[in-house]
């Protein structure tokens, strides 16, 4: 493993050094691959996505600002590539981004109450990871993306706004809706 500082590797990669870029790939591939697995939900697509991420990074590395975090920049590329791929695939959207949350008449509470168990009780009984993962995979890609970035990757709201190139208010709203959409998906299983 190279002991050259990351910024030096980036600087050299910007001049066209494939060796330096290869070192960057080695440094970041685990993190990028993990992120891609979270997005794509299977290792095969994740590997393809991760490869595309690095190729895009190579093509655009000259535009990378060195004061930014390279790993975050790679994640940004991954999210954008994945969302674009989902759109092209016309990935089935179970929950529309435009679907209004039923606040007005407190229907959400009524809906939960109408079922035999509250969402909390269902969650408590729910078999972990796999059901949540499957439910996550059924969400609208942009809902899934914010949950992956916030919950799994631990990015702040501000970072997510930068990653997705949207306002902080949009991030707040989207995370809120995404979490509720996910709960609804889990409850529906």
């Amino acid at each position, binding site marked *: 493993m190279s002991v050259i500082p990351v910024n030096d590797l980036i600087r050299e990669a910007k001049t*066209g*050094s*494939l*060796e330096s*870029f*290869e070192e960057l*790939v*080695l440094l970041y*591939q*685990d993190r*990028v*691959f*993990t992120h891609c*697995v*979270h997005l794509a*939900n*299977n*290792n*095969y*697509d*994740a*590997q*393809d996505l*991760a*490869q595309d991420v*690095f*190729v895009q990074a190579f*093509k655009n590395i000259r535009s990378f600002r060195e004061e930014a975090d390279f790993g975050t920049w790679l994640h940004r590329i991954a999210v954008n590539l994945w969302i674009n791929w989902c759109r092209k695939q016309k990935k089935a959207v179970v929950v529309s981004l435009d679907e209004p*949350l039923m*606040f*007005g008449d*407190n229907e*959400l*509470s009524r809906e*939960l109450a109408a079922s035999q168990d*509250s*969402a*909390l009780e269902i*969650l*408590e009984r729910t078999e*972990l*990871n796999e059901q*949540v*993962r499957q439910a*996550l995979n059924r969400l609208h890609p942009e809902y899934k993306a914010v*949950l*992956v970035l*916030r*919950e*799994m990757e*631990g990015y702040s*709201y501000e970072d997510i706004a930068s990653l997705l190139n949207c306002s902080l208010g949009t991030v*707040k709203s989207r*995370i*809120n809706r995404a*979490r*509720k959409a*996910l*709960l609804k998906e*889990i409850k529906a299983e």
Partner: protein
Amino acid sequence: MNCREAKQLISPYLDGMLESKETLQMQLHLDACKHCRDDYRALAQLSRMLHSMGKDIQPAPADLKNAVMLAVQQEAAVSGRPGLWRGWMQKTRKKAIPAAAAAVLLLFTALNGFISGNPALVPIAVHEGEPSDSVPPNPINDAVEIQPPPAENVPPTSGKNPPDVPKEIAENEDPPGNTSTLPATSAPVLLSVENRNILSTMLIIRSSGDQSTIFEQVQSIASPFGASAEKLGQQVKAGVSYNLFKLVVERGQDKALISSLSSLGTVVSRSDDKQDISQAYTQALEQFLSLSTQRGETSDPAKLKQLDQQIAVLQQQLGDWKQKAGAVTVVLWIQN
């Protein structure tokens, strides 16, 4: 604060993103409203679950880096960044590994749960186009000492060698391919649409026969089908010892071969895998054609030499895929 307002703020409240005044109002509302309190607790638990799902970093597949650098190299060639890719090729050392080893590691892990305790027959699992979600990306830590790349990501090897013979990329000044004499109209290796996948099968057999002559038995079964057979070694998994063999047979003969191998004992499990290389193949072919066009439009000797080298690399990759796609690899685990 009413329930409607609380539900709009519940998520940023969970993340500590509210102003002090709103935070206090939310706390008071949650203290008073069971429904909203339950909603909050459900979201909090969901958040914890997602966090725990995401906290582990998964190792990237062993071949990812090479696949990336191959793609990057091709990108550099197309975008006209001369000379850099040669530096990378000179320094790259990798053994070209039998494609079957990928199947060994991935497919065995998929069946690990079975091997560890359940001897019952399992249905044949046929993976069309992509591996099962249950297949983890990690090679088995204690598997036989082979590090295979998936077929589409193998760095170029000499097309003259059979796919199962490990080769080292030579430390020559020039990459493989007699570049200065490469014909300008060198045609790419073509693969038909229906053959753009690499097939492999993993078969686990509980043998009741003489283990001391098991390899000879395997060879005698393989021979009529024109299949090559080699020993991969021994593997102990969950206290059970297996002899591993790799057979490579021409497409069309694989079904009959596998059926004949079943005579070695009781078939405990079988898993078929199909690795789709369409996309990688198409991309490589497009690269090849693009470079060939460039070659036809230049008379600069240095540029010609560079293009010939790049074309040779792609030609080797295409040839390697054709060779692998024309054969089926069967990895045999015979329980002692």
